[in-house]
């Protein structure tokens, strides 16, 4: 099943792997395909700025053709969740209670399960008359560890609650997350040792959780234009150590060291890329996004979407 035909895509990865850009580019791509898309981020708001829009906060806000934004605050989501369980009046009475706030902080997984509950609601087809129904909800999810805690939370919660409405809701959430025709995870990685290790560990955790891994995006890849023996020939021009070449010498001498350093880095990254490919299930597509010199801006999202589309999504 095509990635973009799912209902919920969770984009995660270690910090600094380009999650936000990838989530935004996927959303642009889906909207271009004629889908009604909601792009959601959790705990913090950066996407509105990327799209050149004022902050949207905890409200679904259409920002351009077919694309809406929301910034989900877990603590607000937790209040929504509890309000839906105890009713607005009761919730209002205990809202100010510091003990209540304390509990919200300390209760195991409450904020995570509430966030998933919010996402579950956003993906529903039958949301009621006044609410927009989305074809696809794309989440710029928290970094890997926290994202996994989120994915685990409905099952944990369902296990703690012995019955009643919460148990039922938690089971519905869990079945949404485990349904590979509806939910998929997109992992972002960098071609370096630790990020690749973590990506493979996360892939294994997702298998254990029965959550589909739909795509891995390897960001900031670089290649080399030289064969190894050619790079060696260039390197032979360098007097002294590559990291600390001796001063002096002509243009060729001065230019050689940076080329060899770059070549070796590219080769190391290729090895990490191969290791990543070998460690992933064959059916999981791996997309490479080349390194860019600058920051990803709004005008770049179209290009990024093209690159992702080129990978036959």
């Amino acid at each position: 099943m095509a990635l973009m035909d799912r209902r919920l895509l969770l984009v995660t990865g270690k910090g600094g792997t380009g999650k936000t850009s990838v989530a935004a580019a996927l959303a642009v791509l889906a909207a271009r395909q004629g889908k009604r898309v909601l792009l959601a981020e959790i705990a913090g708001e950066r996407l509105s700025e990327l799209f050149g829009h004022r902050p949207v906060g905890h409200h679904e806000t259409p920002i351009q053709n077919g694309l809406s934004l929301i910034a989900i605050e877990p603590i607000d989501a937790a209040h929504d969740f509890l309000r839906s369980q105890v009713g607005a009046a009761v919730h209002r009475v205990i809202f100010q209670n510091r003990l209540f706030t304390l509990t919200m902080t300390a209760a195991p997984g409450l904020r995570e399960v509430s966030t998933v509950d919010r996402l579950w609601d956003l993906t529903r087809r039958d949301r009621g008359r006044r609410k927009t129904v989305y074809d696809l909800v794309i989440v710029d999810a928290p970094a890997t560890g926290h994202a996994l805690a989120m994915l685990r939370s409905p099952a944990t919660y369902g296990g703690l609650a012995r019955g009643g409405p919460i148990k039922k809701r938690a089971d519905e959430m869990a079945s949404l997350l485990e349904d590979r025709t509806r939910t998929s995870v997109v992992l972002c990685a960098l071609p370096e040792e630790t990020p690749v290790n973590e990506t493979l560990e996360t892939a294994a955790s997702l298998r254990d959780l029965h959550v589909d891994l739909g795509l891995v995006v390897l960001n900031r890849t670089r290649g080399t234009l030289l064969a190894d023996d050619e790079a060696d020939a260039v390197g032979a021009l360098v007097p002294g150590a590559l990291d600390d070449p001796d001063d002096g010498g002509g243009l060729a001498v001065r230019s050689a060291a940076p080329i060899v350093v770059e070549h070796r880095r590219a080769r190391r990254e290729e090895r990490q890329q191969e290791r990543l490919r070998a460690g992933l299930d064959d059916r999981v597509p791996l997309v490479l996004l080349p390194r860019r010199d600058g920051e990803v801006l709004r005008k770049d999202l179209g290009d990024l979407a093209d690159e992702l589309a080129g990978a036959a999504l």
Partner: protein
Amino acid sequence: MSADPAPALTSTLHLDETLADARVVVLAGGGGVGKTTTAAGIGLGMARRGRRVCVLTIDPARRLADALGLEGVADEPVQVPLEDGADGELWVVMLDAKSTWDGLIRKYADSDEAAERVLQNRVYKEFSGAVAGTQEYTAVEKLHELLQSGRWDVVLLDTPPTRNALDFLDAPQRLHAFIDSKALQLLLKPASGGIGLIGRGAGMFTGLLKRALGVDLLSDLIEFFGVLGGMSQGFSDRARAVQALMAEPRTVFLLVAAPLPESLAEAARFRSILRGRDIHYGGLVVNRVTRADQDDDEAAVRTAFGAHLDEDVATRAAAMHERVRSQAAHDTAMVTAHLAAPGEERVLLVPQLAEDVHDVAGLDRLGAHLYPVPVPG
């Protein structure tokens, strides 16, 4: 697009000078910027200068951890063998937040039984493993313990990657406020006013909570905070001590960043937070900076290579040089753009090395750039 020629940017942060009297060095910055490697490299340099150094790290890359002898050892200082018979020592401790917490609970609980009950408590498990701030708190706790032992001249703290610098600086205080809150007092003494409002309120609250969450957390909460409440004075004292420690002139903060926009922006945010506080900020270390001479254009490089290499290889090598030159220009421009006003912030540019660092030899290679002036004598 060819980048505008960036103004020359040179390193102005000299670690030998900045860290000469340091007793605590705190390294802060986002994840994946090479903070742990930088901490180990700086620590090794200090050890090579005859000091007894301990590096407290959170989550080192596996190969580096293995090379330093940290494999499977948490919370215990491990000495890194230095072959030269130098006067200095390098030790490394890998922090395990959960086991530091478990140790604190065992220390402060009234009895072994009480400690065991808390260790099995659902709220405690969540709290010690995951709640934001607890890892930061234990890092500070461990730092304090290492300094108290008197075994080291200097301790380097590789902080957990946080979204917000305040999380780390304020962890002890926030934790104290959390534990010491009035709400907690209410929770602990639900019946202290006889059958007064407090008791009834708590009862109603419990019922609602149970109905709302489907879980009876109250007993777990009471047990958990019962023990933690007993530790309240300890936390309060520690929060004050840590604040004083961070403000000491011999405590130096260094920021670590990668030459990437998000990383440098994060460092700039952190810097502005530090500035508002009584903290000695040493400067910014930027790792993996691409270097290449900016004056050398592609055609000239190709011609120069033509004298030494096949024409085809010379052409591709020159194209590659152009790519590196463009990145070097961007790296320099980006670092410059994110620095504080000229002269206000010291910066140390660490170049991209030919090989990754994952052992002591690698740390020494890195050290050559962290300390461009060799060990005196």
